[in-house]
């Protein structure tokens, strides 16, 4: 039980993600979360505006149920399985964040400077959250996959397009982390 309540090290978490990959293919499906974004658009009536979204969302309903399960999994873990949401960070990371105005780095899963109520209800904070999501959604569908479909499944399957995409993930991530975040905050 003690193990369940501690944060899991990478060598437990990674193989457990492979287990998810195995289960989804064993059940006759695939592992790719970002396609749900398109299914949700279709479900929400985006077909009224764009021909592409006129597909029948029901054929992907299993994936929506999967992501609904993930929401419930998040709820269960915050209620009963993560008594402390503190994240142990490298002192250098804490110092780097402090210089751009992020206090108490690692006190919780998410920094209040981006995700707190003050941030949500400020114009800048709102635009950062909306813009971050917009880039994720646009980029994932442009590249044809996200961390699950490209980084995990694609690289496991030795796919060249996935390797190129993951290199792109890093180009974008490095630009944001090293150049843009210090300017934005």
């Amino acid at each position, binding site marked *: 039980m003690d193990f369940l309540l501690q944060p*899991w090290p*990478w060598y437990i978490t*990674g193989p457990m*993600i492979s*287990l*998810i990959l195995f*289960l989804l*293919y*064993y*059940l*006759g*499906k*695939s592992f790719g979360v970002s396609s749900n*974004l398109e299914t949700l658009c279709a479900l929400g009536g985006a077909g009224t*505006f*764009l021909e*592409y979204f006129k597909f029948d969302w029901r054929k992907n309903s299993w994936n929506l*149920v999967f992501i*609904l*399960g*993930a929401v*419930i999994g998040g*709820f269960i873990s*915050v209620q009963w399985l*993560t008594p402390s949401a503190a994240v142990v*960070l490298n002192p250098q990371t804490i110092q780097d964040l402090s210089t751009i105005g992020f206090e108490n780095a*690692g006190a919780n*899963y*998410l920094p209040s400077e*981006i995700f*707190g109520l003050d941030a949500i209800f400020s114009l800048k904070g*709102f635009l950062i959250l909306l813009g*971050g*999501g917009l*880039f*994720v*959604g*646009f980029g*994932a569908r*442009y*590249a*044809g996959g*996200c961390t699950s479909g*490209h980084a995990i499944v694609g*690289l496991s*399957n*030795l796919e060249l*397009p996935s390797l*190129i*995409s*993951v290199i*792109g*993930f*890093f180009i*974008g991530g*490095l*630009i*944001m*982390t090293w150049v843009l*975040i210090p300017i934005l905050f």
Partner: protein
Amino acid sequence: MKHLKFLLVGLLFGIILSKGEVISWYRIYEMFKFQSFHMYGVIGSAIFIGIFLMILFKKGIIKTYLGENIRVAPKRKGFTRNIVGGTIFGLGWALAGACPGPMFILLGRGAIAMSIVILGALLGAFLYHAVKNKLPH
């Protein structure tokens, strides 16, 4: 409900990514700062085992629960779409600290701000299909 099994797998997925702290903004930040091995270990070990799973799928040693062969759909080829799409994705991933799965898991953990991120992601997916004919692939 015929989809109950997917609800359970999703539930497990949500717990795994929570327990592994993969859903923490800080874990993504430190990954791009090269200040921790955690995320590299998580993704690397998942791929390492994934490679063996793919071989077992292809050789037909692991089949679906119905006994059918498992076929993993190939990714679409094209340098531009993957490098540009990937870079745009990376910009958002590092800013929001969440890729599509963790967005939903964090929402379940009560992070209300994630509803704005998810709204943005839906808008982004919609926008891509609105302009894709004008984009290089």
